């Protein structure tokens, strides 16, 4: 009915979509990594994201709530999540890799239920909120519209994570082994590599990314129970349209998701919610195995 679409508005909205896509990318790339190397649809990924946010808050508060606390939380919260996932992997998960996908799905769902309740027991039901360091607060003017500084920061972090993942999987031996294990885990064992370790490492790395996503998102939202629900379905759709297990696919999927949503808001706010789903339907109808090559 009313349209207030201006060029600058369009651009700033696009940028906002991009920065949203960065969070989605960080979370879904971890999911995609686990899907690719371990072939595990990890439903608990969303819970780890939520725990990442809660731990980030606790750490930042413990460190006095200042900028230092924020940076500390950004590093330590994902590490804590990685430790939790390491425990889950070594104690439970590593016995199950040979099961059907549906059973793994069920297992990670059970894990998500337990983690969800543990979060409630640990942190309670209160809303929490983390404060970005002062120089990331407020907005800057981008082409005449205010654009939040923190989102600019996210726009910078996303590519750094993508680059880091690329370097990791292409330039380090562990990364190469993980790529090899994605294709043929048996053969990786036959050349003397302890596949169990590789899997544990891949799982922990993927979960680290979930925790990082949670820590990064926490200054922009309230940290609450139930954060896991919204993110997990989006992350799964993203990795599917990108091509299961393909990291660049996760990036492409996140961009499509984030941008289609933010542009949808501008163009047709009442129905912005349908755009991402429509994007998935269109992409999977045209390309039944996702945009990029899948390892599945």
């Amino acid at each position, binding site marked *: 009915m009313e349209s207030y679409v201006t060029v600058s508005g369009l651009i700033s909205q696009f940028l906002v979509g991009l920065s949203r896509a960065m969070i989605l990318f960080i979370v879904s790339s971890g999911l995609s990594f686990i899907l690719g190397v371990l072939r595990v649809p990890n439903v608990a990924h969303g819970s780890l994201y939520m725990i990442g946010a809660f731990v980030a808050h606790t750490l930042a508060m413990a460190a006095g709530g200042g900028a230092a606390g924020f940076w500390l939380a950004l590093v330590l919260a994902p590490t804590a999540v990685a430790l939790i996932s390491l425990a889950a992997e070594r104690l439970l998960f590593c016995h199950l890799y040979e099961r059907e996908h549906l059973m793994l799905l069920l297992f990670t769902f059970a894990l998500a239920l337990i983690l969800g309740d543990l979060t409630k027991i640990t942190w309670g039901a209160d809303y929490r909120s983390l404060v970005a360091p002062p120089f990331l607060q407020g907005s800057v003017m981008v082409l005449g519209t205010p654009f939040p500084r923190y989102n600019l920061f996210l726009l910078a972090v996303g590519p750094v994570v993508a680059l880091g993942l690329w370097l990791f999987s292409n330039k380090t031996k562990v990364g190469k082994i993980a790529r090899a294990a994605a*294709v043929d885990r048996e*053969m990786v*064992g036959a*050349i003397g590599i*302890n596949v169990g370790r590789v899997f544990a490492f891949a799982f922990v790395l993927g979960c680290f990314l979930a925790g990082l996503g949670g820590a990064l998102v926490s200054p922009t939202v309230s940290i609450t129970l139930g954060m896991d629900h919204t993110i997990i379905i989006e992350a799964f759709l993203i990795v599917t349209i990108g091509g299961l297990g393909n990291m660049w696919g996760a990036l492409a999927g996140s961009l499509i998701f984030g941008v289609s949503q933010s542009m949808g808001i501008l163009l047709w706010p009442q129905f912005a919610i349908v755009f991402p789903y429509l994007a998935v339907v269109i992409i999977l109808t045209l390309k039944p195995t996702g945009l990029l090559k899948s390892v599945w």
Partner: protein
Amino acid sequence: MLEVQGIHTYYGLSHILFDVSLRVEAGQVVCLLGRNGAGKTTTLKSIMGLAPPARGRIRFNQRDVTGWPPYRMARQGAGFVPDNRRIFADLTVGENLEIAARQGPGAEKWDRERVYDLFPALRAMDRRRGGLLSGGEQKMLAIARALMTNPQFLLLDEPTEGLAPLLVKSLGERIRKLKELGLTVLLAEQNLRFTLGLSDYGYIIDNGRICHHGRVAELVNDPQVRKICGI
């Protein structure tokens, strides 16, 4: 070096190997002959730990290695070259070799350069993705990859499968050279002619059972063996 004692192996519910026993002495090339589906691959996989036997013992380097996971076997000095090559298709040739590199117990210290010396064709393809190699090149890469783990003992599964005669010949020469370098080899083949000049001793496997064994020259003249091997 290797002693397999009466192993039985199952895939799910199907019983594949029945009481398979064989011995490989250090420095020997031993061949395991049989046709498609006879149980050669399963035997090799059982030794390697990829398809652990349900019953029976496997001793390797004076140790009981029954039920060991593949990576421990590899670290003990067993190199495995699977029949369907199983190159890591997404990785380059160089990366395929790199991730396999390991200080194994083998006497020869293999590195990328030495492996490329043995298979010069691969050197030119260092940066090519493994999946884009031809069948023969993949075979070489699979052997090269196994060598990178510095094994004492090589399990070769049907190296000649699908190769043109010329390639088969040159492959034979490489294997002979490896033998000269002191490697012990267990070679699964259905091509009796190929193994003739290479191996010291042979086992014939059929329907999951070892039905004959002896020196290869003797085996080749056994009419029953000839029948089984499709000559």
